[in-house]
C-alpha cells in the first residue's frame, strides 16, 4: 500500500517553544491512521503543520509525491486536504447551507453527496437555513465534518471529533466516519476516545514530547494493555 502523506524530520516552533521535534510518519492511502498521545504531546500541532497553519521550521512533508511544507494553507487545501479542527469549528454567523456552500468552494453542492450526508446527520437537513451558531454542540460537530466531506478529498485531517459530545452523537459520528472509510478515504485522526479509536483505526501513531514514540497496528495496541500504560500513561480500556 502506498503512503499518501509522509512527514520526514519535521520540526515546528511556535514562538520560542520547540513543539514538534523531528516527526517521521506515513499515512497509507485508504486507511485510517490514529494519532494518539497525552495532552500537549503535539498532536494538534502536527495536524496544523500538515495543513500549513503552522509553518514547519525544518523537514519535509509530502502529499502524494508533492512537497507541501512551504505551501500556503489555501494551496494545501486545494490539493485535496480537508481539515476538521477541534472545538466544533463552524462559521456561526452563516447558515448550515452557507457553511456547506462555502466548503464546496468552486461549484454547486452535489445533491447525491448531500443526501448521503443527511443520511447520517438528519439534523443538518432540519436546520438547513438556521444559523450554525444556534446549533447544539453535536450538530456543530456534524456540520464541521460534513463541511470536510462535502467535496471529495484526498486526505482528511480530523482533530478530536468526539470531544465533549453525548454518547449517542459519538455513535452517529463513528458510523459516519466508518462509512467515509469504506468509501476509501484516507484519514489522519486525532482521538482521545478509545472506543472510537479502536472502531476506526487501522494503524496507530503515538506521540510524546513532539516525537513519534510508537507506530503499529491499532488492533495490536488495543490488545496490549501494558503497552498502552507505558505509552499513554493509562489503560485505554478504562478511558472510554
Amino acid at each position, binding site marked *: 500500500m502506498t503512503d499518501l502523506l509522509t512527514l520526514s524530520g519535521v520540526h515546528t516552533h511556535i514562538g520560542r517553544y520547540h513543539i514538534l521535534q523531528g516527526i517521521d510518519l506515513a499515512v497509507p492511502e485508504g486507511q485510517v491512521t490514529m494519532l494518539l498521545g497525552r495532552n500537549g504531546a503535539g498532536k494538534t500541532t502536527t495536524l496544523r503543520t500538515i*495543513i*500549513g*497553519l503552522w509553518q514547519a521550521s525544518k523537514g519535509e512533508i509530502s502529499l502524494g509525491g508533492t512537497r507541501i511544507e512551504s505551501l*500556503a*494553507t*489555501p494551496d494545501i*487545501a*486545494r490539493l485535496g486536504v480537508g*481539515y476538521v*479542527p477541534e472545538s466544533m*469549528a463552524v*462559521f*456561526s*454567523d*452563516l*447558515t448550515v447551507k*452557507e457553511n456547506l*456552500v*462555502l*466548503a464546496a*468552494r468552486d461549484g454547486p453542492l452535489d445533491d447525491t453527496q448531500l443526501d448521503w450526508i443527511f443520511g447520517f446527520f438528519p439534523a443538518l437537513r432540519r*436546520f438547513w*437555513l*438556521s*444559523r450554525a*451558531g*444556534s*446549533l*447544539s454542540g453535536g*450538530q456543530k460537530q456534524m456540520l464541521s465534518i460534513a*463541511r470536510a466531506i462535502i467535496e471529495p478529498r484526498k486526505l482528511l485531517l480530523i482533530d478530536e471529533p468526539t470531544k465533549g459530545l453525548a454518547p449517542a452523537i459519538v455513535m452517529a459520528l463513528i458510523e459516519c466516519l466508518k462509512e467515509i472509510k469504506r468509501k476509501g478515504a484516507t484519514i489522519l485522526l486525532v482521538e482521545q476516545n478509545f472506543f472510537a479509536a479502536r472502531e476506526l483505526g487501522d494503524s496507530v501513531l503515538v506521540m510524546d514530547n513532539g516525537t513519534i514514540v510508537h507506530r503499529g497496528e491499532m488492533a495490536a495496541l488495543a490488545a496490549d494493555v501494558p503497552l498502552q500504560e507505558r505509552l499513554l500513561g493509562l489503560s485505554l480500556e478504562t478511558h472510554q
Partner: protein
Amino acid sequence: MMILSGDPPKSRVLTLVLVLIILALAATPFLFPGAKALNVAAKICVFAALVASYDLLLGYTGTVSFAHTMFYGIGSYAIAIALYGMGPNWAAVATGIVTGLPLAALLALAIGLFSLRVAAIFFAMITLAVASAFQVLASQLSWLTGGEDGRSFRLPELLRPGTVLIPKDMFGVEINGRILTYYLVFAGSALMILALLRVVNSPFGRVLQAIRENRFRAEALGFRTVFHLTYANCIAALVAASAGILNALWLRYAGPDTSLSFSIMLDILLMVVIGGMGTIYGAVIGATIFIVAQNYLQSLMGVASKAADEAGLPLLPGLLHPDRWLLWLGLLFIASVYFFPTGVVGRLRYGGGKKTAGPSH
C-alpha cells in the same frame, strides 16, 4: 426582493423606518424647503453610501481601516481639480471620475497586498500612517490642491442653481440645477448601497463573513484570504471615492476639512456603530441619526432651554443651553451604544439577544 439581493430588512419596524427615511430623502426638495434641509439630506445620502462602504470592511471582514477618508478625499479632490483645471464642463467631470476611481482602487490594492497579511492592529496603524501622509501631501501640494483653502469650482451649466429646468408653477417648487444635483447625489448613493448589498449577499460576501469569524478556518477551506480582503478593500475604496465625488459635486468644493479630516473618520465609525455593523442597512440609519442630531440638536435644545426658562424650572435652562449641544450629542451616543450594543439595525432585527434564527439546544 431582487433589488435587495434577497436580504430584506427582516423587521417590520426597521422596514418602516427605512421606507420613511428613503421617502423623506426623495421628497426633501418638495417637503422641506430651504437650503439647510437640502444640505442635510444630501449629506445623509453621501454618508449613507460612505458608511455602507466602511461597513463592508469593518462589519463584514472585521478589518479596521483609518484610510477610508483618504479614498473619500481622493474622489473629492479628483473631481475638484479636474473641474477647476479644465473648467465647468462634462469632460472635466468624466476626467475626475476616470482619474479618481482608478487611483483610489490602485492605492487600496497596494495597501491591501502589502498590509493585509499582518495582524489587524498593524493594518489599522499602517492605514492611519498612510492617511496622515496623504493629508499632509494634500495640504503641501497647494499648487494642485489649493492647500488648506482647498479648491472651489463651478459645475457644468446643467447642474448650476441658476439653471431652471421646470418652473415653479408646475410642482410648486422650482426644479433647477441644484435640485438636479441633489437627485444625482440621491440616486448615486442609492445605487452604491444596493450594489454593496449585492456584494455582501454574494458568495464573495459569505467568504468575507467566514474570514471575519475565523481567518485560519477560511484558509483551511482553500480561500486565499489576503486576496479576498484586498478585493473588499478595493470595492470599499471605490465606493468611498464615488461618495467623495458626489460630495464635491454637491458642495462645489473640496478641501481638507470636508474631505480628508480625521474627524470625518470618527464620524464614520460612530455612524457604523450606531446603525449596526455588518448589516449595510445600518449605514442608512446611522448616517440619518448622526447627521440629523449634528444639525438640529442645537436648535432643538435652544427651544427646550427657552421653554424651561419660561416655565421657571431650575437648572434645566442651563443644562439645555444650545452651547452644550456637543455634551448632549456625546451622551446620546453613549446611550445608543449602551442600549443598542448591536446597533439600531441589530436590535430591530434580532431583538436584545444574539443573532439566533434557528433552534437553541
